[in-house]
């Protein structure tokens, strides 16, 4: 059991020791050796995390279709490979070989950079995610704020897609997406504050460790915070029922109307990355992260995250799209007041339990 639990950290240590031996043999100063080893290890960790992320996205594409099919009483993909499992790979190949069409009047450079700016924050957010015990790429003391701040860069990418395409559907979709993202960022940020109050730290690793006794979702204030977080996270990543920015019955495909080929593929990847990240953050903050009996820590983490992802897919298939006025009203008149009151409640309860 212990071997499985420490599988990845042991692999890390082994490669680290090997590199230290290898590069140490060149007769450089100890300082230079440790810097080079750290850089190589960083690149390896980053690549491993990204490959894992791509693998997750491939499973999510398949899972999304299968869940949708189950809900709608269909079979779903079943031609490419057993149970249609190779379908995402076929989709990826298709993305690669499709022609890239840029409208004549578009701002070419902005059009090209928009998907890059949309995807880059998702990559950066992975830095602080604790995938298992001792498996966070970096344990920053500003962990939670790091994820919030880098994901706020993504809105610039939406603006760029809307403007760069020179298409009114893209423009409308981009503007809607940004308005929605900023409106739901406020409750999302506010609802994390009770968790910081309980844990007394912003480091995601510390927050998980503090939940060894009880997951925060089982506390009344934690439950409220979790529900608010999950709803605003779904809105933040533009998933149905909050998919107004790309409501196909109104504005074609929103900000990626004019995108095709790999550029569209990057937007698609970014969307799933963001969905995965908000679910990992919810797991870390409310569901005890890697904590759990019997199974290895990283397996617990994956299981909890996938549970939240499947819940999100289920919601997507069940609830119809909001109207824009309902959407804005819900964020500002329901979620924000609830989370403000929840902060005060948590602070009061903490004082009460400390003295009483």
């Amino acid at each position: 059991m212990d071997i499985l639990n420490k599988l990845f950290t042991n692999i890390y240590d082994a490669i680290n020791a090997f590199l230290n031996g290898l590069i140490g043999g060149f007769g450089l100063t100890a300082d230079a050796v440790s810097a080079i080893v750290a850089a190589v290890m960083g690149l390896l960790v980053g690549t491993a995390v990204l490959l894992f992320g791509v693998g997750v996205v491939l499973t999510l594409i398949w899972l999304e279709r299968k869940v949708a099919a189950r809900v709608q009483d269909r079979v779903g993909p079943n031609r490419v490979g057993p149970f249609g499992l190779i379908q995402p790979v076929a989709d990826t190949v298709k993305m690669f070989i499709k022609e890239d069409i840029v409208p004549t009047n578009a701002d070419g450079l902005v059009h090209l950079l928009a998907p890059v700016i949309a995807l880059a924050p998702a990559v950066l957010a992975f830095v602080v995610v604790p995938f298992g015990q001792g498996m966070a790429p970096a344990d920053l003391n500003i962990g939670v704020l790091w994820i919030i701040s880098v994901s706020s860069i993504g809105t610039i990418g939406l603006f760029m897609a809307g403007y760069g395409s020179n298409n009114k559907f893209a423009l409308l979709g981009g503007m809607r997406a940004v308005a929605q993202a900023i409106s739901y960022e406020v409750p999302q940020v506010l609802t994390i504050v009770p968790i910081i109050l309980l844990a007394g730290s912003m480091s995601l690793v510390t927050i998980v460790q503090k939940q060894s006794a009880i997951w925060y979702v089982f506390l009344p204030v934690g439950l409220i915070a979790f529900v608010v977080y999950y709803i605003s996270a779904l809105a933040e990543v533009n998933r149905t029922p909050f998919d107004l920015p790309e409501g196909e019955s109104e504005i074609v495909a929103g900000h990626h109307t004019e995108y095709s080929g790999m550029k569209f593929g990057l937007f698609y990847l970014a969307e799933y990355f963001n969905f995965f990240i908000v679910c990992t953050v919810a797991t870390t903050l409310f569901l005890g992260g890697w904590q759990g009996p019997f199974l290895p820590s990283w397996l617990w983490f994956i299981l909890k995250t996938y549970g939240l992802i499947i819940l999100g897919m289920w919601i997507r298939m069940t609830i119809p799209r909001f109207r824009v006025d309902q959407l804005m009203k819900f964020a500002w008149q329901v979620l924000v007041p609830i989370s403000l009151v929840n902060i005060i409640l948590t602070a009061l309860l903490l004082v009460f339990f400390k003295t009483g």
Partner: protein
Amino acid sequence: MLDRYGIVAIFALLAVIFPAVPLLLSWVIRPKKPNQSKRATYECGLEFEDFPEEAQNVWVQFRVQYYLFALIFVVFDVEVVYLYPWAVAYSALGLFALVEMIVFLGILLLALAYAWRNGLLEWT
């Protein structure tokens, strides 16, 4: 600094490389046969070129509400970042920290109530 943020810098590098690789790869293998109608701006069911000159301007006049929501968002965002260090330090502080934060949040709620009463939180 570098011991903690070195890996962040590496991830920042990867954040640029990671989208660039598939873009370059697909640039190599994909067909490149643009023509005029392919490159036309997308429009529902109509040829964009058939539009009269003034309708070809895709620029839409946006409602001022977008800007007002962004303004409210900036105010809330600034206040929220003050809450985080307070929340981290809270357990080590006394009752006064609670009282002060209730005053702070009270003023925030006042701002919300003002915007609410003026109908700014509604999308009409």
